């Protein structure tokens, strides 16, 4: 066994050495200044009315990438759900009720995080921020609550969890298809409602992304991770 493993270790060495050499050479061959598509993008962003050019690229110019990226995230969630060993993983309490300090901290932090998530989405159009950042914070808030022993709220039945996970993608597809009714192409937002549509998508996406992150966490948690079972 040992020999079998030592011999192929040559291949990884060659591969990473090759990467260093060839990619290094390629990088050094580049001219020190280049602007790529920066100018076009900035001009385009001015025309579209979204102040943060990265957000404009993400949700407008290359909104199609982002649509598929949301699909990747939801797909990964579905994938991890399909791999879970315990069908009830999503609705299980995985830790005992936290002690007084952690409990108090969670009660303070969680609402604050939700607020921050909302803020991140709201400023996304002009400053760094947006649905992914907001969703990540929201998901973190969820994980924090779960870890401190807060079970899911009563309304979150299995079906409802699925709806929350999906609503962002569904809304995105809906908004993407909507311009087609007026003869536009996929994701061709009408100029007058562009900002509102993007904000609408972002809010729902934040929810779904947060739920995705929480589900990814819960689905992988083992049934034996400690704490009492309800």
């Amino acid at each position: 066994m040992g020999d079998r493993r030592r011999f192929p270790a040559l291949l990884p060495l060659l591969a990473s050495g090759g990467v260093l050499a060839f990619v290094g050479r390629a990088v050094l061959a580049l001219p020190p200044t280049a602007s790529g598509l920066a100018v076009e993008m900035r001009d385009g962003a001015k025309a579209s009315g979204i102040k943060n050019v990265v957000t404009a690229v993400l949700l407008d110019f290359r909104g199609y990438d982002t649509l598929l990226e949301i699909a990747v995230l939801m797909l990964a969630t579905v994938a991890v759900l399909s791999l879970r060993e315990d069908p009830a993983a999503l609705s299980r309490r995985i830790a005992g009720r936290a002690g007084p300090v952690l409990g108090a901290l969670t009660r303070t932090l969680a609402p604050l995080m939700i607020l921050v998530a909302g803020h991140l989405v709201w400023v996304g159009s002009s400053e760094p921020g947006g649905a992914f950042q907001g969703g990540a914070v929201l998901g973190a808030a969820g994980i924090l609550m779960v870890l401190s022993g807060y079970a899911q709220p009563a309304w979150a039945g299995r079906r409802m969890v699925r709806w929350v996970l999906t609503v962002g993608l569904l809304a995105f597809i809906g908004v993407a298809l909507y311009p087609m009714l007026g003869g536009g192409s996929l994701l061709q937002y009408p100029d007058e409602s562009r900002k509102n549509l993007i904000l609408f998508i972002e809010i729902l996406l934040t929810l779904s992304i947060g739920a995705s992150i929480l589900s990814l966490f819960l689905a992988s948690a083992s049934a034996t991770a400690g704490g009492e079972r309800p």
Partner: protein
Amino acid sequence: MNVLAQSPGLLVAVPLAGAAISFVAGRRRAPHVAITTALVVLTLAVALAVHVLDGGPFRYQVGGWGAPLGIDLVADGAAALFLVLTAIVGLVVTLYATAYFRTDDETAYGHGLFWTLWLFMWTSLNALFLTGDVFNVYVCLELVGISAVTLVTIGGGAEALRAGARYLFASMLGAMTYLLGVALLYAATGQLDMDVLRTTLVADTTAATGLALMIAALVLKTALVPAHFWLPAAHGSAPSPVSAVLSSLVVKGSYFVILRLMLDVMPAGYLPGVDIVLGVLGSAAIVWGSVQALLQTRIKQLVAYSTVAQIGYLFLVFPLARHGADVLTLALTGVLVHALSHGLAKGSLFLGAGSLMTRFGHDRIADMAGAARSAPALTFGVALAGVTMMGLPPSGGFGAKWLLVSAALASGEWWWAVVLVIGGLLAAAYMFRLLSVLLVDAPTELHASKGDIRTEWLPLALALGAVLLVLAIPLVSDLAAASNVLIHAGVTP
């Protein structure tokens, strides 16, 4: 709304919506969502093909921005062929799966999430065949990869998990390599749109390194020998409808991008020698995959190695493309016909293998004697699919072999023709090894559950499609002539 002109956007949006809806629909209604989606997507794919046949290739500006600002979808003849193939195989697999995944066990088959995963995969394949943007290819490839890996593991056995893990790491390596390639290409050119790149690409170390990395990554994803190590286990241990999709469609997705990068985006000789290397590796794949298939004792492993071999044929177009427009036309039409016929036949073989395994309760070829009598439709399906694998007339596989042999002979590089002929004979050897067992006169007690009409006849339907494809070759040639590769090579239809 003009469905013909909107078909590229809809071909992505509709299955994506289907995936999302099937997730919330619950396990009972999800199959209906999938079947409805499949029918709509088939209609859209045909509409797109008709539109291309009528007016030639067209671009679809997502978001209305247009390259280089936005992302463009490209609908040309080659894309149309792959989309229609995907839709046909997809519909058949969907129908087959309604019979195959019939289980009341709550935890089996990934908690009924097969439908959602499958529709995501379909979305990503359509997106991959349509996209005109090298970074968007990366996102599509990831969608394909994640859904494919998960579908392999959905059966949940140790073997499937092991195959899935191996597949996942190959997929990760490919994804990161591809993204690195894109990073270098963008740094050198400042462009991501394939058509803009085609017209602006100049000799440049960084751009060439980027493209080489991208092609290497795609070769890994297409499982061209020697990067095929992950394929047989993954395709062999997945549930049969999944194997069918993986073998007949998924490997074609990354191949299609190679085709476009090699023959459309890059000027001839941009990466010197790479075309020859790909041809040589393709030849090696044909021989190595066939020999391995001949040695397998389990039916799905045999079929999976056959895929390794058949992928090889697809790469013979690259060395042949150097010999002028006429040879290129023959060779490109040849690989397109091959992709179609292999897609249909391999789908049929995996579905048929799945049905045989269900009925026999095992997957050992040696113990499948007598199937010809108790499961004649299945045996006939395997035989017809075999005919097209071997490239014998009358079948799509024959059309492909003929076109490629002609291209090889016309190019003067006759040795590719020798490879093709040897490949056909080896395919005959492994297919008849399987068939002769099925035809043995042996009293058999097949599994008590009699075959469902779907699991018995759908494999035969796909195989018949692969055979009848020979009559559709003029249509395929017309679509090939409407592909950007040939149009940009100056071939007038």
